[in-house]
């Protein structure tokens, strides 16, 4: 978007003149700023992606560390004050199993307190698989084990910490489809653009290819691919490569629309003018035609990213996408597809909130961007 100095410069001119001399980028930015909800969503999403980049730092326990005897603990609050003094601590959770119903219930015992520290050392991890680290936002002093004491959002049936798992899951769920979405965009815009701009024989070929691809049903393809992937690959690798392959099939929608716009736009006067001024094809496509398509492309992206998050969650929930040892929103929710989670262990459904939340944020952001990207409409 535009730089501050640009805006200052035009601030001196009266508003009508300002609009007529502003660049398209400035117009988009002004329009976007007006959409308060979109700006707010954009900031939150940025934060979300930034924090999930440091998922392990925010996690308290090793998300894979299981201990059945700590299974199904309910969320445990952090007490910040102890007898009037600031001394963050958590109470010990003591569980007993009912001999008749076999239900395990935990009660906080505040006679046994564990102090809570911030920016402390905890379990060791490799940040982004590269840098070994052991710092965590929340932790326990030396001599304690976070896995045994802190359960901010409770534990699952195998005694793994939900708080930590949700952080790690968020990173995977928010990012695993991004490459696929990018590929879809590249294919859609370039093939659609070529098809529309040149027309004729090339157009016919590309359109027939699109028709063939559109006839391939996705879910059976998904099932076949998940069975066909190399046996030695991990579940995350398999899923990632499936999203890539699926993106080879998903670009057709976007390509059709882009082609349509190109077909109509290439007859416009400003394109003719550009051609007559001796502009080359690349300049015409990217400088003159493309900007008219921004709003549509942005709309497509703002729909595609939440769609990819939802499909990860949905496919994993159905047992087709990511599966149990992998940690994602979908796999966390998959563990709750039973009556007892709804009735007795409600905290297991907490992963639904980040799913709903992030999808909403993306939709608000998309809304704002779409309006802003077409600044000449009104």
């Amino acid at each position, binding site marked *: 978007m535009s730089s501050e100095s640009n805006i200052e410069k035009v601030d001196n001119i009266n508003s009508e003149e300002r609009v007529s001399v502003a660049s398209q980028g400035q117009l988009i930015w002004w329009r976007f700023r007006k959409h308060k909800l979109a700006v707010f969503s954009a900031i939150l999403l940025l934060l979300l992606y930034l924090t999930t980049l440091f998922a392990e730092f925010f996690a308290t326990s090793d998300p894979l560390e*299981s201990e059945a005897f700590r299974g199904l603990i309910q969320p445990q609050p952090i007490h910040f004050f102890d007898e009037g003094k600031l001394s963050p601590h958590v109470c010990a959770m003591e569980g007993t199993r009912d001999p008749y119903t*076999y239900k*395990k219930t935990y009660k906080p015992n505040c006679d046994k307190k564990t102090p809570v520290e911030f920016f402390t050392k905890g379990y060791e991890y490799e940040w982004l698989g590269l840098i070994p680290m052991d710092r965590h936002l929340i932790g326990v002093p030396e001599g304690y084990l976070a896995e045994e004491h802190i359960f901010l959002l409770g534990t699952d049936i*195998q005694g793994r910490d939900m708080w930590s798992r949700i952080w790690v899951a968020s990173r995977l769920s928010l990012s695993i489809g991004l490459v696929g979405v990018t590929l879809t965009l590249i294919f859609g815009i370039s093939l659609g653009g070529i098809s529309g701009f040149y027309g004729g024989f090339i157009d016919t070929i590309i359109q027939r290819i699109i028709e063939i691809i559109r006839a391939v049903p996705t879910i059976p393809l998904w099932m076949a691919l998940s*069975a066909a992937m190399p046996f030695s690959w991990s579940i995350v690798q398999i899923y990632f490569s499936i999203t890539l392959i699926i993106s080879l099939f998903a670009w057709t929608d976007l390509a059709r629309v882009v082609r349509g716009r190109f077909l109509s736009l290439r007859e416009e006067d400003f394109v003719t003018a550009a051609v007559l001024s001796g502009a080359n094809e690349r300049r015409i496509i990217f400088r003159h035609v493309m900007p008219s398509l921004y709003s549509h492309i942005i709309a497509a992206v703002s729909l595609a990213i939440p769609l990819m998050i939802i499909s990860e969650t949905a496919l994993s929930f159905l047992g087709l996408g990511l599966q*149990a040892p992998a940690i994602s929103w979908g796999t966390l929710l998959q563990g709750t597809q039973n009556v*007892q989670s709804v009735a007795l262990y409600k905290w297991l459904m907490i992963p639904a909130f980040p799913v709903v939340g992030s999808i909403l944020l993306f939709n608000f952001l998309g809304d704002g961007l779409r309006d802003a990207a077409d600044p000449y409409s009104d």
Partner: protein
Amino acid sequence: MSILNPYRMITVLLLAFAAISIACGGTEVVTEKVVQTVVVEKEVVKEVEKIKEVEVEKVVIQEKEVPVDKVVTKEVVTKYTPEEGEEKASGQAATGEVAYTRQVLDKSKHPTSYGESPDLAAKVKSGDLPPVEDRLPKNPMVLDSSDLDGVGKYGGTWKRAFTGPADEQNIERISKNHMIFWNSQMTELRPHIAEDFESNADATKFTFKLREGMKWSDGEPFTTADVMFWYEHILLDDNVLPAKPGYSKTANGEMGVWKAVDDYTYTVEFSEPYGVYLELVSGLSVAGHLTQFPVCGGGFSPKHYMSQFHAAFVGEEEANKLAKDAGYDNWGTHFCAKNNPVKNVDSPVTTAWMPIKGFNEEESVWERNPYYWAVDAEGNQLPYLDKIVLSLAEDVEVLGLRVVAGEFDIQGRHVKPDKLPLLRENEEKGGYRVQFTSAAGSSAITVYPNQDYGAHGEGDKEIGDLLREADFRRALSIGFDREQIREAIFLGMGRSASACAIPDEPYAPGPEYDQMWSTLDVAKANELLDGLGLKEGSDGFRTKPSGDPLVLDVIAVTGAFTDSVGAAELIKKDWADNIGINLKITPTERSLRETRLKNNEAMLSIWGGGGASEPLFLFPNHDLAFNWESGMGPASGQWFQDSSVFGPPLSASIAKQQELWRQGAALPRSERIDIGKEIRKIACEEVHAITTITETPAWIFVIKNYVRNFPTGVPFTTVGQTPGSFYTEAFWFDQ
């Protein structure tokens, strides 16, 4: 029923004596409390001895040569008696004493006059039905429920759920029509459709006597013609059954020959001894006309109805035309579809309820069969319940929710044990109680190392060779903490044990095998792995002897009865932490597991069983390499069934087990016990299956409080088709 009330106790004891003297194998009903009373014990023994001398020869022919005294002691031994107090009690807490509906075998005690339900009586009055005496056979099966709630009231609709057309087992399990069947405790064979049965001394010829005057549900007589129709036109007809089912052949593949002696007697003859035959036909394999489990029903078929679809009766052209009109490729498949009453409601049946609406509809309705051939101790024709209505609940969780809401009268099938806390908490609100059935010895989470892996070029031979090393399997078995699985997956119930912990099975090798290679011992496990030359690689995991990374892969079925993926995650973590074994979990859909096993592609796989409560010679799928389903040797198992596929096992211990099983199957029960023990011993010493937790109430029943005559303390078995083994026709509702 409460046995604690002293007044009631006396009544119960008196009733029990009456029942014992009626049924010859009476000791099986003695409850713990009864045994404690000295006087009672004496009485029981006396009664049994007296009757035994007369009855044993006739009914349980294999035991003829065994002295009577010995029979009594043996029965006590095979009886399920909880020994370990608390541990056992956790799984059996609710079952309490042992009580169930029994058959009255002494014909002099049979009722002479018969009663019937009011709705049938009305039909008789209006002339729509013949009187009850004419509908029943001359000697109906007599069921005595005096140990439970006794003679019941007619009426009521049994509401239940099923999960779709594929869930045929749902009705097959509760509506039985075996030729001969087990008692509820699975210890004794009992007559069922056949009034009597016997084997010759060397177990080559078996004679069955049908009930004279017995009828199909449409009123047509049931005779040996129906048995011979099945033999000649289903079993022998290659158009109907191209592959002959296992129960028609001996262990060496010799086909049996069926012969009708007269209208009510037929024989089955084999060219070599087939000692396990009688037990086999009482089980899952030839479970009768209604049960389609293998293919196209078993044992008999309604000739008067089915012959209209058979080429031998109407000509091939006509039969094929009928099939084409109905949308089938050929008359063979059409015939089999028509022979399945669960989906073809026009077919007559011999079960207690007959189909009105089949399993291909939203709701399946079954109504009382007016010609059902069983009565209660007072001569009232069974069943008591008017109807069974099964409603479709495609999703198991939805089904579970409806169970919690108390919508079903008796539902065990599809109720997962992880719902137990929820079910128990809502007992009062839902008006039901939760009852456990003992599934002793069955480890619902068992890891099977495939000893055929890589033997036929389907996988890494080096890993296959490791899996064939007993020490490798032993190290895996003692390398993880079973208590974690007990706590997380089984709600803290049951106990960890080897595949030999089967106290109620005659082939259990003994207490010294109970914990063999099944308790955590990290030092020993590492020692064993070091001994195999598996060194630690750069990533902290052990490598193959060649130095390449060693990654084991386990197939864990998703959406099965127990959470095998969850259990696999716990094992994975322990193996990584304790013994440096890298396990990769492959969550697999159920039918994909079947494909993987059939192709011998499974390295490790998780399934139930491995020392199951199913007797070793009747359902050995999980005890030795018997067929594709045997995770320890799916290739050699298929070879065992058909020597043209794959090849003999590379593992000597698997080969030995297969050989022993063949020997044992030919022998009568009393003679094959040592062979059975030997098979079990090999399994536990060589760790063919890595069992986890046994004696969990893997099967629970949710029963409305008004349900009567529901047995307690009896086992859940596949062979006995539980709850069919509970004699569901004697259930009634006290409403």
